[in-house]
Protein backbone atom coordinates (compact mmCIF):
# COMPACT_ATOMS: atom_id res chain seq x y z
CA UNK A 1 0.00 0.00 0.00
CA UNK A 2 1.09 3.58 -0.60
CA UNK A 3 2.70 5.48 2.26
CA UNK A 4 1.88 8.90 0.89
CA UNK A 5 -0.43 10.18 -1.81
CA UNK A 6 -1.24 13.62 -3.15
CA UNK A 7 -4.71 15.02 -3.77
CA UNK A 8 -4.78 17.18 -6.89
CA UNK A 9 -8.14 18.73 -6.16
CA UNK A 10 -10.03 20.93 -3.73
CA UNK A 11 -13.24 21.25 -1.75
CA UNK A 12 -15.34 18.35 -0.62
CA UNK A 13 -13.73 15.78 -2.90
CA UNK A 14 -10.25 16.63 -1.62
CA UNK A 15 -11.61 16.07 1.88
CA UNK A 16 -13.30 12.84 0.76
CA UNK A 17 -10.02 11.46 -0.57
CA UNK A 18 -8.12 12.65 2.48
CA UNK A 19 -10.53 10.81 4.76
CA UNK A 20 -10.26 7.57 2.80
CA UNK A 21 -6.47 7.75 2.73
CA UNK A 22 -6.24 8.55 6.41
CA UNK A 23 -8.37 5.56 7.29
CA UNK A 24 -5.97 3.44 5.25
CA UNK A 25 -3.02 4.86 7.19
CA UNK A 26 -1.70 6.80 4.19
CA UNK A 27 -0.20 10.28 4.59
CA UNK A 28 -1.89 12.92 2.49
CA UNK A 29 -0.38 15.86 0.64
CA UNK A 30 -2.96 18.39 -0.46
CA UNK A 31 -1.97 20.48 -3.47
CA UNK A 32 -3.84 23.77 -3.38
CA UNK A 33 -4.11 27.16 -4.99
CA UNK A 34 -3.46 30.39 -3.12
CA UNK A 35 -7.23 30.84 -2.76
CA UNK A 36 -7.52 27.57 -0.86
CA UNK A 37 -4.72 27.97 1.67
CA UNK A 38 -7.25 28.09 4.51
CA UNK A 39 -9.48 25.35 3.16
CA UNK A 40 -10.45 22.42 5.36
CA UNK A 41 -8.56 19.78 3.37
CA UNK A 42 -5.43 21.93 3.57
CA UNK A 43 -5.86 22.41 7.31
CA UNK A 44 -6.37 18.69 7.85
CA UNK A 45 -3.62 17.56 5.49
CA UNK A 46 -0.38 15.98 6.60
CA UNK A 47 1.32 18.30 4.13
CA UNK A 48 0.05 21.10 1.95
CA UNK A 49 1.74 22.56 -1.10
CA UNK A 50 0.68 25.68 -2.89
CA UNK A 51 0.71 24.98 -6.62
CA UNK A 52 -0.41 28.28 -8.10
CA UNK A 53 -2.57 31.37 -7.99
CA UNK A 54 -6.38 31.21 -7.65
CA UNK A 55 -7.35 30.67 -11.31
CA UNK A 56 -7.71 26.93 -11.96
CA UNK A 57 -5.78 27.12 -15.20
CA UNK A 58 -2.71 28.18 -13.26
CA UNK A 59 -3.13 25.88 -10.28
CA UNK A 60 -5.46 22.88 -10.35
CA UNK A 61 -4.87 22.48 -14.09
CA UNK A 62 -1.16 23.28 -13.89
CA UNK A 63 0.34 19.89 -14.69
CA UNK A 64 4.03 20.81 -14.21
CA UNK A 65 3.41 22.34 -10.79
CA UNK A 66 1.23 19.43 -9.71
CA UNK A 67 3.80 16.86 -10.78
CA UNK A 68 6.61 18.82 -9.14
CA UNK A 69 4.61 19.01 -5.95
CA UNK A 70 4.13 15.24 -5.96
CA UNK A 71 7.81 14.70 -6.67
CA UNK A 72 9.22 17.05 -4.02
CA UNK A 73 6.81 15.79 -1.39
CA UNK A 74 7.57 12.17 -2.13
CA UNK A 75 3.99 11.22 -2.93
CA UNK A 76 3.75 7.84 -4.66
CA UNK A 77 0.35 8.45 -6.21
CA UNK A 78 -2.01 11.24 -7.20
CA UNK A 79 -5.76 11.18 -6.70
CA UNK A 80 -7.34 13.59 -9.18
CA UNK A 81 -10.84 13.72 -7.62
CA UNK A 82 -13.43 14.77 -10.21
CA UNK A 83 -13.30 17.67 -12.64
CA UNK A 84 -9.99 19.46 -13.29
CA UNK A 85 -7.54 16.82 -14.54
CA UNK A 86 -9.51 13.75 -13.51
CA UNK A 87 -10.29 12.71 -17.07
CA UNK A 88 -7.23 14.08 -18.79
CA UNK A 89 -5.30 11.17 -20.37
CA UNK A 90 -2.25 13.35 -20.91
CA UNK A 91 -1.99 14.06 -17.20
CA UNK A 92 -2.37 10.35 -16.40
CA UNK A 93 0.35 9.60 -18.90
CA UNK A 94 2.72 12.21 -17.50
CA UNK A 95 2.16 10.80 -14.01
CA UNK A 96 3.20 7.41 -15.33
CA UNK A 97 6.24 8.92 -17.06
CA UNK A 98 7.37 10.38 -13.75
CA UNK A 99 6.86 7.18 -11.81
CA UNK A 100 3.77 8.42 -10.03
CA UNK A 101 0.65 6.29 -9.89
CA UNK A 102 -2.44 8.00 -11.27
CA UNK A 103 -5.38 6.79 -9.18
CA UNK A 104 -7.78 6.04 -12.01
CA UNK A 105 -7.94 4.11 -15.23
CA UNK A 106 -5.08 3.85 -17.72
CA UNK A 107 -4.52 6.81 -20.07
CA UNK A 108 -5.41 4.45 -22.93
CA UNK A 109 -8.87 3.59 -21.67
CA UNK A 110 -9.49 7.19 -20.67
CA UNK A 111 -8.60 8.19 -24.17
CA UNK A 112 -10.74 5.64 -25.94
CA UNK A 113 -13.75 6.18 -23.65
CA UNK A 114 -13.26 9.92 -23.33
CA UNK A 115 -14.80 10.91 -26.65
CA UNK A 116 -18.41 10.39 -27.66
CA UNK A 117 -17.37 8.64 -30.85
CA UNK A 118 -14.97 6.31 -29.04
CA UNK A 119 -17.59 5.47 -26.48
CA UNK A 120 -20.14 4.61 -29.16
CA UNK A 121 -17.70 2.34 -30.90
CA UNK A 122 -16.88 0.43 -27.71
CA UNK A 123 -20.57 0.18 -26.87
CA UNK A 124 -21.29 -1.32 -30.27
CA UNK A 125 -18.49 -3.86 -29.83
CA UNK A 126 -19.71 -4.85 -26.36
CA UNK A 127 -23.32 -5.09 -27.53
CA UNK A 128 -24.62 -2.18 -25.49
CA UNK A 129 -27.30 -0.04 -27.18
CA UNK A 130 -26.61 3.60 -27.95
CA UNK A 131 -28.84 6.34 -29.22
CA UNK A 132 -29.08 6.13 -33.01
CA UNK A 133 -26.46 8.51 -34.29
CA UNK A 134 -23.28 9.12 -36.19
CA UNK A 135 -19.54 9.20 -35.85
CA UNK A 136 -17.64 12.48 -36.22
CA UNK A 137 -19.30 14.56 -38.91
CA UNK A 138 -17.17 16.01 -41.66
CA UNK A 139 -19.62 18.61 -42.88
CA UNK A 140 -23.05 20.11 -42.41
CA UNK A 141 -24.20 18.16 -45.46
CA UNK A 142 -23.30 14.92 -43.77
CA UNK A 143 -25.21 16.12 -40.73
CA UNK A 144 -28.31 16.89 -42.79
CA UNK A 145 -28.22 13.51 -44.43
CA UNK A 146 -27.85 11.68 -41.12
CA UNK A 147 -30.65 13.71 -39.55
CA UNK A 148 -33.00 12.73 -42.36
CA UNK A 149 -32.29 9.06 -41.72
CA UNK A 150 -32.62 9.26 -37.94
CA UNK A 151 -35.58 11.65 -37.92
CA UNK A 152 -35.88 15.05 -36.25
CA UNK A 153 -35.41 16.25 -33.57
CA UNK A 154 -31.71 15.49 -33.38
CA UNK A 155 -28.94 16.59 -31.08
CA UNK A 156 -25.57 17.99 -32.13
CA UNK A 157 -22.87 17.26 -29.57
CA UNK A 158 -19.18 17.95 -29.15
CA UNK A 159 -17.37 14.67 -29.64
CA UNK A 160 -14.94 15.56 -26.85
CA UNK A 161 -17.65 17.00 -24.63
CA UNK A 162 -19.23 16.22 -21.32
CA UNK A 163 -21.51 17.74 -18.72
CA UNK A 164 -24.01 18.82 -21.35
CA UNK A 165 -21.86 21.59 -22.70
CA UNK A 166 -21.78 22.32 -26.38
CA UNK A 167 -25.04 20.51 -27.16
CA UNK A 168 -27.68 21.82 -29.56
CA UNK A 169 -31.15 20.48 -30.30
CA UNK A 170 -32.02 20.72 -33.99
CA UNK A 171 -35.71 20.34 -34.83
CA UNK A 172 -35.65 20.75 -38.62
CA UNK A 173 -33.31 20.86 -41.58
CA UNK A 174 -33.73 24.65 -41.71
CA UNK A 175 -32.11 25.00 -38.29
CA UNK A 176 -29.20 22.72 -39.08
CA UNK A 177 -26.78 25.08 -40.78
CA UNK A 178 -26.67 27.72 -38.07
CA UNK A 179 -26.76 25.16 -35.28
CA UNK A 180 -23.86 23.25 -36.80
CA UNK A 181 -21.65 26.32 -36.95
CA UNK A 182 -22.54 27.40 -33.43
CA UNK A 183 -21.95 23.95 -32.00
CA UNK A 184 -18.55 23.81 -33.67
CA UNK A 185 -17.54 27.09 -32.10
CA UNK A 186 -18.72 25.98 -28.69
CA UNK A 187 -16.98 22.64 -28.99
CA UNK A 188 -13.78 24.42 -29.86
CA UNK A 189 -14.17 26.84 -26.96
CA UNK A 190 -15.04 24.29 -24.32
CA UNK A 191 -13.00 21.32 -25.39
CA UNK A 192 -10.41 22.68 -27.83
CA UNK A 193 -11.82 20.32 -30.43
CA UNK A 194 -14.56 21.32 -32.91
CA UNK A 195 -15.53 17.72 -33.80
CA UNK A 196 -19.26 17.13 -33.69
CA UNK A 197 -21.46 14.07 -33.65
CA UNK A 198 -25.20 13.82 -34.16
CA UNK A 199 -27.78 11.74 -32.31
CA UNK A 200 -31.48 11.16 -32.11
CA UNK A 201 -32.85 13.65 -29.61
CA UNK A 202 -34.89 12.01 -26.89
CA UNK A 203 -36.97 14.61 -25.14
CA UNK A 204 -38.31 12.77 -22.15
CA UNK A 205 -35.97 10.44 -20.30
CA UNK A 206 -34.45 9.45 -17.02
CA UNK A 207 -30.73 9.74 -16.43
CA UNK A 208 -29.64 6.41 -14.95
CA UNK A 209 -26.01 5.50 -14.41
CA UNK A 210 -24.21 2.35 -13.37
CA UNK A 211 -21.36 2.46 -10.88
CA UNK A 212 -18.65 -0.07 -11.67
CA UNK A 213 -15.32 -1.03 -10.15
CA UNK A 214 -12.76 -2.97 -12.12
CA UNK A 215 -9.28 -4.31 -11.53
CA UNK A 216 -7.90 -3.60 -15.00
CA UNK A 217 -7.61 -7.32 -15.66
CA UNK A 218 -11.16 -8.06 -16.67
CA UNK A 219 -12.79 -8.40 -13.25
CA UNK A 220 -15.61 -5.89 -12.97
CA UNK A 221 -18.47 -5.57 -10.47
CA UNK A 222 -21.29 -3.06 -10.32
CA UNK A 223 -22.37 -1.24 -7.17
CA UNK A 224 -25.90 -0.70 -8.34
CA UNK A 225 -27.22 2.19 -10.35
CA UNK A 226 -28.23 5.76 -9.61
CA UNK A 227 -31.00 7.95 -10.91
CA UNK A 228 -29.69 11.46 -11.52
CA UNK A 229 -32.64 12.93 -13.40
CA UNK A 230 -33.08 16.01 -11.22
CA UNK A 231 -30.94 18.42 -13.18
CA UNK A 232 -30.83 22.06 -14.06
CA UNK A 233 -29.05 23.12 -17.22
CA UNK A 234 -27.58 19.62 -17.43
CA UNK A 235 -26.06 19.92 -13.96
CA UNK A 236 -27.16 17.24 -11.54
CA UNK A 237 -28.75 18.52 -8.36
CA UNK A 238 -30.26 15.45 -6.69
CA UNK A 239 -29.31 11.81 -7.11
CA UNK A 240 -30.70 8.63 -5.66
CA UNK A 241 -30.01 4.94 -5.52
CA UNK A 242 -31.44 2.60 -6.50
CA UNK A 243 -33.43 3.88 -9.47
CA UNK A 244 -37.17 3.34 -9.70
CA UNK A 245 -36.93 1.22 -12.83
CA UNK A 246 -38.64 -2.11 -12.81
CA UNK A 247 -36.40 -4.92 -11.71
CA UNK A 248 -35.88 -6.67 -15.06
CA UNK A 249 -34.93 -3.41 -16.77
CA UNK A 250 -32.60 -2.53 -13.88
CA UNK A 251 -30.83 -5.85 -14.25
CA UNK A 252 -30.51 -5.41 -18.03
CA UNK A 253 -28.91 -2.00 -17.62
CA UNK A 254 -26.58 -3.17 -14.83
CA UNK A 255 -25.48 -6.11 -16.99
CA UNK A 256 -24.89 -3.80 -19.97
CA UNK A 257 -22.71 -1.53 -17.82
CA UNK A 258 -20.60 -4.39 -16.55
CA UNK A 259 -20.29 -5.86 -20.05
CA UNK A 260 -18.93 -2.64 -21.50
CA UNK A 261 -16.51 -2.04 -18.61
CA UNK A 262 -15.25 -5.62 -18.92
CA UNK A 263 -14.73 -5.13 -22.63
CA UNK A 264 -12.19 -2.38 -21.98
CA UNK A 265 -10.63 -4.15 -18.97
CA UNK A 266 -11.63 -1.15 -16.97
CA UNK A 267 -9.55 -0.27 -13.93
CA UNK A 268 -10.83 1.61 -10.89
CA UNK A 269 -14.12 3.43 -10.37
CA UNK A 270 -16.20 4.36 -13.38
CA UNK A 271 -19.73 5.32 -14.25
CA UNK A 272 -21.71 4.38 -17.33
CA UNK A 273 -24.41 6.89 -18.09
CA UNK A 274 -27.62 5.74 -19.73
CA UNK A 275 -30.76 7.48 -20.80
CA UNK A 276 -33.96 5.55 -20.28
CA UNK A 277 -37.10 6.61 -22.08
CA UNK A 278 -40.65 6.16 -20.73
CA UNK A 279 -41.08 3.03 -22.83
CA UNK A 280 -38.14 1.32 -21.14
CA UNK A 281 -35.68 1.75 -24.00
CA UNK A 282 -32.21 2.47 -22.71
CA UNK A 283 -29.18 3.86 -24.47
CA UNK A 284 -25.58 4.16 -23.33
CA UNK A 285 -24.42 7.78 -23.36
CA UNK A 286 -20.87 7.91 -22.08
CA UNK A 287 -18.55 6.60 -19.45
CA UNK A 288 -17.12 8.84 -16.78
CA UNK A 289 -13.70 7.51 -15.96
CA UNK A 290 -13.47 8.90 -12.42
CA UNK A 291 -15.18 8.96 -9.06
CA UNK A 292 -18.31 11.07 -9.29
CA UNK A 293 -19.86 13.66 -7.02
CA UNK A 294 -22.81 11.37 -6.42
CA UNK A 295 -20.85 8.23 -5.58
CA UNK A 296 -22.02 8.63 -1.97
CA UNK A 297 -25.52 7.30 -2.61
CA UNK A 298 -24.00 4.06 -3.90
CA UNK A 299 -21.85 3.90 -0.78
CA UNK A 300 -24.89 4.36 1.43
CA UNK A 301 -26.80 1.44 -0.05
CA UNK A 302 -23.79 -0.86 -0.41
CA UNK A 303 -21.82 -0.06 2.73
CA UNK A 304 -18.68 0.13 0.58
CA UNK A 305 -16.07 2.88 0.54
CA UNK A 306 -15.54 3.44 -3.18
CA UNK A 307 -12.64 5.85 -2.79
CA UNK A 308 -10.77 3.34 -0.64
CA UNK A 309 -11.38 0.73 -3.29
CA UNK A 310 -9.98 3.12 -5.93
CA UNK A 311 -6.83 3.59 -3.89
CA UNK A 312 -6.43 -0.11 -3.17
CA UNK A 313 -6.84 -1.05 -6.82
CA UNK A 314 -4.35 1.64 -7.87
CA UNK A 315 -1.89 0.32 -5.30
CA UNK A 316 -2.11 -3.08 -6.92
CA UNK A 317 -3.94 -4.84 -4.11
CA UNK A 318 -5.88 -7.84 -5.35
CA UNK A 319 -9.48 -6.83 -6.04
CA UNK A 320 -11.36 -9.82 -4.73
CA UNK A 321 -14.81 -8.30 -4.22
CA UNK A 322 -17.38 -10.44 -6.00
CA UNK A 323 -20.77 -9.34 -7.26
CA UNK A 324 -22.45 -11.64 -4.75
CA UNK A 325 -20.58 -9.90 -1.89
CA UNK A 326 -22.29 -6.64 -2.72
CA UNK A 327 -25.63 -6.45 -0.95
CA UNK A 328 -27.60 -3.32 -1.67
CA UNK A 329 -29.96 -2.20 1.09
CA UNK A 330 -32.55 0.53 1.42
CA UNK A 331 -32.67 3.79 -0.48
CA UNK A 332 -30.30 6.76 -0.53
CA UNK A 333 -30.71 10.34 -1.73
CA UNK A 334 -28.10 13.05 -2.17
CA UNK A 335 -28.81 16.77 -2.35
CA UNK A 336 -26.03 18.98 -3.64
CA UNK A 337 -26.01 22.15 -1.60
CA UNK A 338 -24.63 24.85 -3.81
CA UNK A 339 -23.79 28.37 -2.73
CA UNK A 340 -26.42 29.81 -5.02
CA UNK A 341 -29.47 31.95 -4.44
CA UNK A 342 -32.46 29.85 -5.43
CA UNK A 343 -34.77 32.87 -5.26
CA UNK A 344 -32.59 34.70 -7.76
CA UNK A 345 -32.34 32.05 -10.47
CA UNK A 346 -29.48 30.18 -8.78
CA UNK A 347 -27.20 33.20 -8.86
CA UNK A 348 -23.85 32.25 -7.31
CA UNK A 349 -23.37 33.60 -3.80
CA UNK A 350 -20.03 33.87 -2.09
CA UNK A 351 -18.97 35.05 1.32
CA UNK A 352 -17.80 34.06 4.73
CA UNK A 353 -19.62 31.36 6.66
CA UNK A 354 -20.35 32.64 10.13
CA UNK A 355 -22.88 30.17 11.43
CA UNK A 356 -22.73 26.57 10.38
CA UNK A 357 -24.79 23.70 11.67
CA UNK A 358 -25.16 20.41 9.87
CA UNK A 359 -27.83 17.82 10.63
CA UNK A 360 -27.06 14.50 12.31
CA UNK A 361 -28.87 11.42 13.53
CA UNK A 362 -29.84 8.13 11.92
CA UNK A 363 -29.06 7.69 8.27
CA UNK A 364 -27.62 11.15 7.68
CA UNK A 365 -24.24 11.76 6.09
CA UNK A 366 -22.65 15.12 5.38
CA UNK A 367 -19.70 15.61 3.03
CA UNK A 368 -18.59 19.21 3.21
CA UNK A 369 -15.43 21.25 3.37
CA UNK A 370 -17.17 24.13 5.10
CA UNK A 371 -16.37 25.30 8.60
CA UNK A 372 -17.49 28.31 10.60
CA UNK A 373 -15.16 31.13 9.63
CA UNK A 374 -14.42 29.75 6.14
CA UNK A 375 -14.74 32.10 3.19
CA UNK A 376 -16.08 30.59 -0.02
CA UNK A 377 -13.64 31.63 -2.73
CA UNK A 378 -15.13 33.05 -5.93
CA UNK A 379 -12.84 31.05 -8.20
CA UNK A 380 -14.39 27.61 -8.26
CA UNK A 381 -17.68 25.80 -8.51
CA UNK A 382 -20.45 26.47 -6.07
CA UNK A 383 -20.81 23.04 -4.45
CA UNK A 384 -20.35 23.56 -0.71
CA UNK A 385 -21.91 20.47 0.84
CA UNK A 386 -23.47 17.17 -0.04
CA UNK A 387 -26.28 16.05 2.20
CA UNK A 388 -26.86 12.33 1.86
CA UNK A 389 -29.49 10.26 3.61
CA UNK A 390 -30.30 6.60 3.76
CA UNK A 391 -33.62 5.05 4.68
CA UNK A 392 -35.25 1.66 4.68
CA UNK A 393 -37.15 2.76 1.59
CA UNK A 394 -37.57 5.79 -0.66
CA UNK A 395 -40.41 7.22 1.41
CA UNK A 396 -38.32 7.18 4.57
CA UNK A 397 -35.33 8.63 2.72
CA UNK A 398 -37.43 11.55 1.47
CA UNK A 399 -38.84 12.23 4.96
CA UNK A 400 -35.33 12.04 6.38
CA UNK A 401 -33.92 14.39 3.77
CA UNK A 402 -36.65 16.88 4.49
CA UNK A 403 -35.90 16.64 8.20
CA UNK A 404 -32.14 16.97 7.64
CA UNK A 405 -32.48 19.94 5.27
CA UNK A 406 -34.63 21.74 7.85
CA UNK A 407 -31.87 21.34 10.46
CA UNK A 408 -29.18 22.71 8.16
CA UNK A 409 -27.85 26.20 8.87
CA UNK A 410 -25.29 27.78 6.51
CA UNK A 411 -25.21 31.48 7.21
CA UNK A 412 -23.01 34.45 6.61
CA UNK A 413 -23.25 37.88 5.04
CA UNK A 414 -24.41 37.37 1.48
CA UNK A 415 -24.31 33.59 1.67
CA UNK A 416 -27.27 31.74 0.19
CA UNK A 417 -27.58 28.05 -0.56
CA UNK A 418 -29.89 25.82 -2.53
CA UNK A 419 -31.46 24.34 0.64
CA UNK A 420 -34.83 25.98 -0.18
CA UNK A 421 -34.79 24.38 -3.63
CA UNK A 422 -34.20 20.95 -2.18
CA UNK A 423 -36.91 21.37 0.45
CA UNK A 424 -39.31 22.23 -2.33
CA UNK A 425 -38.36 19.13 -4.30
CA UNK A 426 -38.82 16.89 -1.24
CA UNK A 427 -42.36 18.25 -0.90
CA UNK A 428 -43.14 17.95 -4.60
CA UNK A 429 -45.86 15.41 -5.40
CA UNK A 430 -44.24 14.31 -8.68
CA UNK A 431 -40.93 13.79 -6.94
CA UNK A 432 -42.54 11.80 -4.15
CA UNK A 433 -44.26 9.58 -6.70
CA UNK A 434 -40.98 9.11 -8.51
CA UNK A 435 -42.35 10.51 -11.75
CA UNK A 436 -39.07 12.12 -12.62
CA UNK A 437 -37.53 12.91 -15.96
CA UNK A 438 -34.67 15.25 -16.69
CA UNK A 439 -37.11 18.05 -17.42
CA UNK A 440 -38.41 17.91 -13.83
CA UNK A 441 -37.01 21.25 -12.72
CA UNK A 442 -38.41 23.15 -15.68
CA UNK A 443 -41.77 21.41 -15.94
CA UNK A 444 -42.71 20.18 -12.49
CA UNK A 445 -41.67 22.97 -10.17
CA UNK A 446 -43.66 25.94 -11.40
CA UNK A 447 -46.28 27.02 -8.91
Amino acid at each position, binding site marked *: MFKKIMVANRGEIALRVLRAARELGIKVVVAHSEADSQSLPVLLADEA*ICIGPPPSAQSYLNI*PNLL*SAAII*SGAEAIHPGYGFLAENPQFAEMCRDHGIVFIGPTPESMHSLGSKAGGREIAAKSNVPTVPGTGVLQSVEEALEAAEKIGYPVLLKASAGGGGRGQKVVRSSEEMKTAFAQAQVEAQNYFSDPSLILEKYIELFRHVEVQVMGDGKGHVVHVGERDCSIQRRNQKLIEEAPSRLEESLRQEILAAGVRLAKYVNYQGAGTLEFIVDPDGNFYFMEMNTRIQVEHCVSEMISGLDLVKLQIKIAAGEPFTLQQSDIQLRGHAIECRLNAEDYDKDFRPSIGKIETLHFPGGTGVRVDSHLYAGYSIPPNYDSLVAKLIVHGENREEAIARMRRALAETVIEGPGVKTTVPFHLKVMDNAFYKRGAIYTNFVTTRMSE
Partner: protein
Amino acid sequence: MNAKELKSILQALQEHEVSELTLETPDYKLTIKRGGEVQYVAAPAPVVIQPPAVAPAAQPVSHAPVATPAPTPAAAPAATPAPKVETPKEDTSKYVEVKAPIVGTFYRAPSPDAEPFVKEGDTVKKGQVLCIIEAMKLMNEIESEVSGVVRKILVANGEPIEYGQVLFLIEPA
Protein backbone atom coordinates in the same frame (compact mmCIF):
# COMPACT_ATOMS: atom_id res chain seq x y z
CA MET B 1 6.85 23.90 13.95
CA ASN B 2 6.74 24.86 10.32
CA ALA B 3 6.53 28.07 8.39
CA LYS B 4 2.79 28.07 8.31
CA GLU B 5 2.49 27.62 12.04
CA LEU B 6 5.09 30.25 12.67
CA LYS B 7 3.25 32.60 10.38
CA SER B 8 0.04 32.19 12.26
CA ILE B 9 1.82 32.58 15.58
CA LEU B 10 3.35 35.82 14.39
CA GLN B 11 0.05 36.99 13.10
CA ALA B 12 -1.59 36.16 16.41
CA LEU B 13 1.11 38.00 18.34
CA GLN B 14 0.47 41.06 16.29
CA GLU B 15 -3.26 40.80 16.66
CA HIS B 16 -2.98 40.50 20.40
CA GLU B 17 -0.23 43.06 20.85
CA VAL B 18 2.19 40.67 22.37
CA SER B 19 5.65 42.08 22.77
CA GLU B 20 7.55 39.05 23.94
CA LEU B 21 7.08 35.32 23.73
CA THR B 22 9.27 32.43 24.75
CA LEU B 23 8.27 28.87 24.11
CA GLU B 24 10.34 25.83 24.96
CA THR B 25 9.35 22.35 23.95
CA PRO B 26 11.44 19.20 23.77
CA ASP B 27 11.78 19.88 20.08
CA TYR B 28 12.60 23.52 19.93
CA LYS B 29 12.92 26.80 21.72
CA LEU B 30 11.22 29.83 20.27
CA THR B 31 11.86 33.41 21.29
CA ILE B 32 10.09 36.29 19.67
CA LYS B 33 10.28 39.97 20.48
CA ARG B 34 8.03 42.34 18.73
CA GLY B 35 8.20 46.07 18.41
CA GLY B 36 10.78 46.49 21.12
CA GLU B 37 10.69 49.19 23.73
CA VAL B 38 8.35 51.49 21.99
CA GLN B 39 8.46 54.90 23.51
CA TYR B 40 6.21 57.69 22.57
CA VAL B 41 7.89 60.81 23.77
CA ALA B 42 5.78 63.83 23.26
CA ALA B 43 7.45 66.95 22.12
CA PRO B 44 7.27 70.19 24.15
CA ALA B 45 4.89 71.77 21.76
CA PRO B 46 1.19 71.01 21.77
CA VAL B 47 0.75 67.70 20.04
CA VAL B 48 -1.81 65.02 19.69
CA ILE B 49 -0.35 61.64 20.18
CA GLN B 50 -2.11 58.79 18.54
CA PRO B 51 -0.99 55.60 20.17
CA PRO B 52 -0.93 52.49 18.10
CA ALA B 53 -4.38 51.70 16.96
CA VAL B 54 -5.54 48.63 18.72
CA ALA B 55 -5.94 45.83 16.27
CA PRO B 56 -9.50 45.82 15.03
CA ALA B 57 -10.26 43.22 17.62
CA ALA B 58 -13.78 42.61 16.50
CA GLN B 59 -12.29 40.27 13.94
CA PRO B 60 -13.04 36.99 15.63
CA VAL B 61 -10.05 34.77 15.45
CA SER B 62 -11.34 32.10 13.21
CA HIS B 63 -10.43 28.87 14.84
CA ALA B 64 -10.00 26.51 12.02
CA PRO B 65 -11.67 23.26 12.87
CA VAL B 66 -8.56 21.21 13.14
CA ALA B 67 -7.92 18.99 16.07
CA THR B 68 -5.42 16.79 14.33
CA PRO B 69 -1.80 17.00 15.21
CA ALA B 70 0.21 19.67 13.50
CA PRO B 71 1.29 18.85 9.99
CA THR B 72 4.62 17.10 9.67
CA PRO B 73 5.98 18.66 6.54
CA ALA B 74 8.63 16.08 5.89
CA ALA B 75 9.67 17.15 2.48
CA ALA B 76 7.28 20.01 2.28
CA PRO B 77 7.19 23.71 1.77
CA ALA B 78 7.79 25.02 5.21
CA ALA B 79 11.26 26.07 5.96
CA THR B 80 11.01 29.82 5.74
CA PRO B 81 13.33 30.92 8.52
CA ALA B 82 11.73 32.90 11.29
CA PRO B 83 11.72 36.53 10.34
CA LYS B 84 14.28 38.19 12.50
CA VAL B 85 13.35 41.31 14.28
CA GLU B 86 14.82 44.03 12.19
CA THR B 87 16.66 46.82 13.84
CA PRO B 88 14.81 50.08 13.58
CA LYS B 89 17.21 51.23 10.89
CA GLU B 90 16.47 48.35 8.54
CA ASP B 91 13.27 49.12 6.78
CA THR B 92 12.24 45.89 5.06
CA SER B 93 9.17 47.48 3.60
CA LYS B 94 11.27 48.81 0.78
CA TYR B 95 12.63 45.40 -0.14
CA VAL B 96 11.32 43.61 -3.16
CA GLU B 97 10.30 40.01 -2.59
CA VAL B 98 11.34 37.46 -5.18
CA LYS B 99 8.76 34.69 -5.08
CA ALA B 100 8.82 31.21 -6.55
CA PRO B 101 6.85 31.22 -9.81
CA ILE B 102 6.76 27.42 -9.93
CA VAL B 103 6.90 24.45 -7.57
CA GLY B 104 10.19 22.60 -7.36
CA THR B 105 13.57 22.32 -5.71
CA PHE B 106 15.66 25.42 -4.99
CA TYR B 107 19.32 25.56 -6.02
CA ARG B 108 21.63 28.48 -5.37
CA ALA B 109 24.28 27.37 -7.84
CA PRO B 110 24.30 26.05 -11.40
CA SER B 111 25.99 22.82 -10.24
CA PRO B 112 26.94 21.22 -6.92
CA ASP B 113 30.54 22.39 -7.15
CA ALA B 114 29.91 25.83 -8.55
CA GLU B 115 29.75 29.09 -6.68
CA PRO B 116 26.28 30.35 -5.80
CA PHE B 117 24.68 32.73 -8.27
CA VAL B 118 24.36 35.36 -5.55
CA LYS B 119 25.21 35.91 -1.90
CA GLU B 120 23.66 38.26 0.64
CA GLY B 121 25.10 41.71 0.08
CA ASP B 122 25.71 41.16 -3.62
CA THR B 123 24.59 43.74 -6.05
CA VAL B 124 22.45 42.33 -8.84
CA LYS B 125 21.09 43.68 -12.05
CA LYS B 126 17.65 43.28 -13.47
CA GLY B 127 17.61 40.03 -15.45
CA GLN B 128 20.52 38.53 -13.55
CA VAL B 129 20.02 34.87 -12.56
CA LEU B 130 19.43 34.51 -8.82
CA CYS B 131 18.84 30.78 -8.51
CA ILE B 132 17.56 27.67 -10.21
CA ILE B 133 14.32 25.86 -9.51
CA GLU B 134 14.31 22.28 -10.63
CA ALA B 135 10.91 21.07 -11.68
CA MET B 136 10.25 17.80 -13.47
CA LYS B 137 13.94 17.39 -14.21
CA LEU B 138 14.10 20.79 -15.88
CA MET B 139 16.34 23.53 -14.50
CA ASN B 140 14.51 26.85 -14.50
CA GLU B 141 16.61 29.93 -14.00
CA ILE B 142 14.97 32.60 -11.91
CA GLU B 143 16.00 36.12 -12.81
CA SER B 144 15.87 39.26 -10.75
CA GLU B 145 13.15 41.65 -11.74
CA VAL B 146 14.95 44.63 -10.26
CA SER B 147 18.45 45.93 -9.88
CA GLY B 148 19.62 46.25 -6.31
CA VAL B 149 21.28 44.55 -3.38
CA VAL B 150 20.42 41.04 -2.21
CA ARG B 151 19.54 41.53 1.45
CA LYS B 152 18.17 38.13 2.40
CA ILE B 153 18.20 34.63 0.99
CA LEU B 154 15.32 32.87 2.65
CA VAL B 155 15.63 29.30 1.40
CA ALA B 156 18.49 26.88 1.81
CA ASN B 157 20.09 25.08 -1.10
CA GLY B 158 18.25 21.94 -2.13
CA GLU B 159 15.05 22.75 -0.32
CA PRO B 160 11.63 22.05 -1.84
CA ILE B 161 9.59 25.17 -2.44
CA GLU B 162 5.95 25.81 -3.13
CA TYR B 163 4.34 28.30 -5.46
CA GLY B 164 4.57 31.88 -4.21
CA GLN B 165 7.18 31.16 -1.55
CA VAL B 166 9.46 34.14 -0.93
CA LEU B 167 13.03 33.28 -1.94
CA PHE B 168 14.96 36.56 -1.80
CA LEU B 169 14.60 40.06 -0.42
CA ILE B 170 16.23 42.63 -2.67
CA GLU B 171 16.73 46.28 -1.85
CA PRO B 172 16.21 48.08 -5.12
CA ALA B 173 18.94 50.41 -6.23
